[in-house]
């Protein structure tokens, strides 16, 4: 019999497999995986969930989530998730996408999934670079930021400006829940988890399209220590990509209360 002092206070969520992740030290993808898994556990939907991995560092998400999973082509996860959800309207379907995947090559697919009010949940991990291919400029790279394909720093005159996807998607009538959070410290991680839960509940109650954008670190490609990278999110990314709720449908507001 467990004494009070031996009570389990922290363990692997059921929805995570025991596999070690391949993520770099200091990367927050792993934290975000855990949040999603905890929420799926709490909502008790692991056995009815189908995940759609995207192309990017999280391409192997299916190795870490203990639920049915498929893997989409680069940028096409929202279209693939649409196909899955339309034939399984009673299942929970989510995509897990990076910013290159969602905001660049897959910009059309995410906009149209949102505007259709597709009843899916999107976990959008914004680390401001193309992580998997070695740190090239993404549509979300901050002005002046050095990457392997903008070595003098992003010059907005020739390379354009970053896209604020959440603000853009929030203009669409079809979207029900669009928020931006950050994974740079425990307080913000807790808020991120709450948003992820709301996003899955939105789907569970058939309330339509829900997306949680999460500012995430990439120390290796930002050429920073893990701690500096978290500071970078707080000091540089949040001013450009403000945290907040950009679209919360009336029905979803009731849900939260």
């Amino acid at each position: 019999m467990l004494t009070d002092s031996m009570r389990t206070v922290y363990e692997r969520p059921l929805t995570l497999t025991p596999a070690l992740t391949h993520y770099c030290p200091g990367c927050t993808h792993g934290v975000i995986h855990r949040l999603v898994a905890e929420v799926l556990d709490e909502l008790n939907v692991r056995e009815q969930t189908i995940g759609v991995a995207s192309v990017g560092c999280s391409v192997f998400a299916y190795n870490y989530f203990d639920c049915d999973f498929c893997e989409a082509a680069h940028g096409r996860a929202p279209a693939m998730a649409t196909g899955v959800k339309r034939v399984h309207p009673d299942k929970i379907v989510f995509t897990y996408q990076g910013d290159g995947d969602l905001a660049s090559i897959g910009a059309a697919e995410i906009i149209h999934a949102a505007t259709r009010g597709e009843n899916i949940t999107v976990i959008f991990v914004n680390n401001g670079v193309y992580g998997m291919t070695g740190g090239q400029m993404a549509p979300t790279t901050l002005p002046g930021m050095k990457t392997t394909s903008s070595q003098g720093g992003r010059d907005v005159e020739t390379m354009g400006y970053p896209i604020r996807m959440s603000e853009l998607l929030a203009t669409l009538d079809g979207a029900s829940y669009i928020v931006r959070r950050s994974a740079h410290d425990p307080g913000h991680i807790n808020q991120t988890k709450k948003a992820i839960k709301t996003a899955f509940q939105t789907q569970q109650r058939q309330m339509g399209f829900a997306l949680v954008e999460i500012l995430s670190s990439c120390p290796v490609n930002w050429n920073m220590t893990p701690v500096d990278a978290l500071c970078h999110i707080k000091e540089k990314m949040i001013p450009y990509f403000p945290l907040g709720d950009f679209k919360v449908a009336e029905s979803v507001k009731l849900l939260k209360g």
Partner: protein
Amino acid sequence: MSVGNPKSWMPVKTLTLKGNLSMDANSAARKLELWKGNEAIAEAAVRAGLEAYFGYPITPQTELLEYLSTRLPTLKKRDGGNRVFLQAESELAAINMVYGAAVAGARTMTSSSSPGFSLMQEGLSYIAASQAPCVLVDVMRGGPGLGNLAPTQADYFQLTKGGGHGDYHPIVLAPATVQEAVDLTYNAFDLAEKYRAIVIIAIDGNIGQMMEPVAMPPMRAIEKRDRGWELTGARNRPRRINTSLFLQPHELEHMNRVLSEQDAAVRANETRCVEQFTDDAELIVVAFGSAARIAQTAVKQARARGLRVGLFRPVSLYPFPEDRLTELATRARQFLVVEMNAGQMVQDVRLAVDRAAGAARYPGYAGGALNWSWTPRPTVQFFGTMGGLTPMPDEILERIEKYMPVLPLSETMIERAALDIAYTN
């Protein structure tokens, strides 16, 4: 050679039919209705148990999408169950929706026309690697580029050779009539599921647009199945993963071997062609789809003039009926390939005919007399129309007469030639 059983879509060796444009001889027994090609194909898919259609408008395919946009929701209202229709934002999205529905285990389909099909090739490569069964209809139009809206057969390469990156071949079926389009579509889902492969119905734009009498097949019920691979949620079973990513070379080689084995089974069992007058033909016209229909008129006219001409129509463009062609190439001495493109299938015909060179030798002709030097193989001539022009029967007949061997080869001549080889060797 026997006339194959048109109802048997079970694995057979090369299914060779004779003297009939339609693969379905039984259709005559059913009630005939007038149907437009595109709509008939759509209805055939519905009756085969189509659960989810995703598409994007493009001429000359659009009626298919429009028809399903009302037909599927109406059926869903009436019977419930899965009858999904969704107009996608692009062909890129449409094929990836099909991908999702297919890995989720549904009978799913999209349709498009050539430029849209080019856009789908990325998705097809992923779908092939994931072994997600699905059916596609390509109502071909003029290209390259935006081309035009007129019928062509210029997608032969992009359909039969894989099209996207990596090693894979969809099964490609090319009907010559609206009835055949209906019959092939109706059976395409079973075929796709049997091999966990992509089946493409390659339609010449004119067949999609024309109206013909059709006997519709009966409505099939949608079955709920668990074949051990579809993603339905890991309830009371281990999770299932569907991916096309295999980072370790030996894993990817293994996956490619699985696809190759599947391909070998397809090639062994699913080859189909139709022949007319090939038994004694010295010149064989090879054509598919509507070009074969036109060629048939020319072949009959040539026969009326006493010329020994036959018609060979591949119905499965992939797998290509190469073995049967090779066999014919040991007897016929000229092939005339007629296509509505700049010469695509002709390459596969040449390969098949070239293989015959090792199997037989042929006497040649010079100045109208039998020449005892030996030509290595029959020649393969080509006649193509492009840009949406269709070949005319008299244009084909003209070429038949031009390429017809000057002196018909008699049985005694073949025997003497064979003896000659025996003595000189």
